[in-house]
């Protein structure tokens, strides 16, 4: 790679950090206002009590748990996809990985907040942590909620480190190109990184191990989230296929989230030279595959329930197929299967716009899917006298909207502070594939024998 193209690449990728337009501040202000409103609403809910929400007997889980499952699913965009692409050494991953890994970290943070928001007394969330307290309260390791705690903690720790480690060389790069307080801050973040051959080898080995370790963790996280449901004897929940069904859905929504994030960054940060149509084309193919897999799981689940004809399950089945939840159910099918399949199966339509349209549909569809797993089953339990209704209240709607704004705000701020595309990884992708080691060895022998 020539020095000129090296410099151009670095300048292009660092430009968004060095230039700040009024649009950036307007966006931050707009999103920040929504997030502040969401926080205010949460405090209001804490002050007034859970009666402010639509959650009531028998539907004790609703919007908040839907959001929890949805955001944990979105988190599968990053680390999982990035780890797979790293392990198979897919060259096209280089501009994609960091965009994806950031989604994981922020989506996990937001997702992990929902069980806390859902607690009546959120300030006691630390009771989940196994520590010997004076009350002799100890977490019950047989509770899926405690499994969630361990799984999400592991995944969040792993994902944050998986994101941070490859950022160290980029921090060093920024350190060398800034002055004043920025130089000081990025210097601290760079941890004294030099870029010696040993450091590069160790970093690459660490990333390889992290990729291997994080894959089963990612799969386990959403499997455990599915256990929150499948361990309960509730109609349509107590299913052996919930684990893989949830994991597939998580990867599906994760890829959709990644495509939308990449397209937005490409447009706003002018990264057209680095995020090429081929990246969207490849991710579009992955999205199509996941759409088909999702369709397969839904069909398998529905067929098994219908064939079993168990009365309590059939109540939930029919209320979603042609009852009060049917409009949401069929919207979900259209968004998750009909739209992605009809757009992405045609090569001509697998463009950036096509992928973004399909992804928007998938995000809507997957949120509805989570909602339709939670609410219809709880509102139609075994005995008809225990049936009930759920209608979301403004508090829940506001908090839900604010988490989407929080995701966008965190992403915007991150892209302002850190190169959203890994500079050094992109440079590696530009290396000519010389690999002329034998010739070098001969030259070395020549020098050592006859300097």
């Amino acid at each position, binding site marked *: *790679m020539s*020095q000129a193209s*090296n*410099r151009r690449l*670095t300048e292009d990728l660092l430009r968004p950090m060095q230039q700040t337009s009024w649009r950036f501040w307007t966006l931050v202000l707009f999103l920040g206002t929504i997030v502040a409103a969401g926080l205010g609403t949460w405090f209001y809910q804490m002050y007034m009590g859970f009666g402010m929400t639509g959650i009531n007997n028998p539907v004790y889980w609703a919007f908040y748990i839907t959001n929890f499952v949805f955001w944990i699913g979105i988190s599968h965009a990053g680390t999982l996809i990035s780890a797979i692409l790293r392990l198979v050494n897919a060259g096209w991953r280089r501009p994609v990985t960091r965009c994806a890994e950031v989604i994981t970290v922020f989506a996990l943070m937001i997702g992990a907040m929902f069980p806390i928001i859902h607690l009546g007394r959120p300030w006691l969330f630390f009771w989940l942590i*196994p520590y010997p307290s004076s009350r002799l309260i*100890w977490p*019950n*390791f*047989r509770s899926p909620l405690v*499994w969630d705690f*361990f*799984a999400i*903690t*592991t995944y969040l*720790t*792993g994902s944050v*480190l998986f994101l941070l*480690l490859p950022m*160290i*060389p980029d921090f060093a790069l920024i350190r*060398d*190109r800034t002055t004043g307080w920025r130089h000081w801050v990025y210097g601290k973040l760079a*941890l*004294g*990184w*030099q*870029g*010696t*051959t*040993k*450091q*590069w080898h*160790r*970093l*690459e*080995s*660490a990333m390889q*191990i*992290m990729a291997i*370790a*994080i894959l*089963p*963790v990612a799969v*386990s996280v959403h499997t455990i989230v599915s256990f929150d449901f499948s361990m309960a004897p509730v109609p349509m929940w107590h299913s052996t296929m919930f684990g893989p069904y949830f994991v597939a859905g998580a990867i599906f929504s994760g890829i959709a989230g990644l495509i939308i994030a990449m397209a937005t960054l490409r447009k706003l940060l002018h990264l057209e030279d680095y995020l090429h149509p081929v990246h969207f084309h490849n991710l579009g193919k992955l999205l199509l595959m996941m759409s088909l897999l999702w369709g397969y799981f839904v069909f398998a689940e529905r067929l098994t329930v219908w064939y079993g004809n168990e009365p309590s399950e059939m109540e939930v089945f029919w209320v979603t197929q042609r009852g009060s939840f049917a409009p949401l159910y069929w919207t979900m099918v259209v968004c998750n299967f009909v739209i992605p399949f009809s757009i992405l199966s045609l090569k001509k339509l697998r463009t950036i716009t096509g992928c973004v349209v399909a992804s928007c549909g998938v995000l809507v569809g997957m949120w509805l899917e989570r909602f339709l797993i939670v609410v219809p089953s709880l509102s139609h339990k075994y005995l008809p006298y225990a049936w009930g209704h759920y209608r979301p209240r403004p508090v829940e709607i506001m908090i839900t909207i604010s988490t989407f704004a929080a995701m966008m705000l965190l992403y915007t701020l991150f892209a302002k502070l850190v190169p959203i595309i890994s500079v*050094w*990884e992109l*440079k*590696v992708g530009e*290396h000519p*594939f*010389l690999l*002329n*080691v034998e010739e070098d*060895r001969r*030259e*070395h022998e020549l*020098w*050592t024998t006859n*300097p």
Partner: protein
Amino acid sequence: MKAVYALYAEARDVQRVFHGLLAAGLPEREIVIISSDPIEEYEFSHRDHATWMYWIAAGGGLIGLLAATWLTRMTELAWPLPTGNMPLVTWWPNIIVMFEMTMLGAILATVVTLLITAGIPRRAAALYDPEVSDGKILVGVENPQDDLIAKIEQALALGGGADIKRV
């Protein structure tokens, strides 16, 4: 810190200088090569490849597994919590906690090994030049013996066109 170094634009020049420094009698471990991205195509970058990191990660995983086994089994016995029809020590659910802590152990061991073996965070002054971030490759020797400096400079000049610097 005392050092002699030069900056090169091309990795091929670095390879030539690397051979020259070895021929000048410098041990391989004393030659410092710094770049803004990993260079895999040349012989000089193939050193320092061997690492125990994979085994250490496995060891970290094992520690995590043992810790989780202790945490779940010991505490289930110390604070008995009868639930449904389950035994006090419930291995099936415990496996989930044990698995997560195994992976957490492996991940943390990997990161700690990286930090230690890569020598970060570094507080002491180390050989570096900000021009590396422009794509230049630095080749140098830290704290060289005085009688070797002339030979080192001679070897660094083999790269051609590079300014030899002393700090």
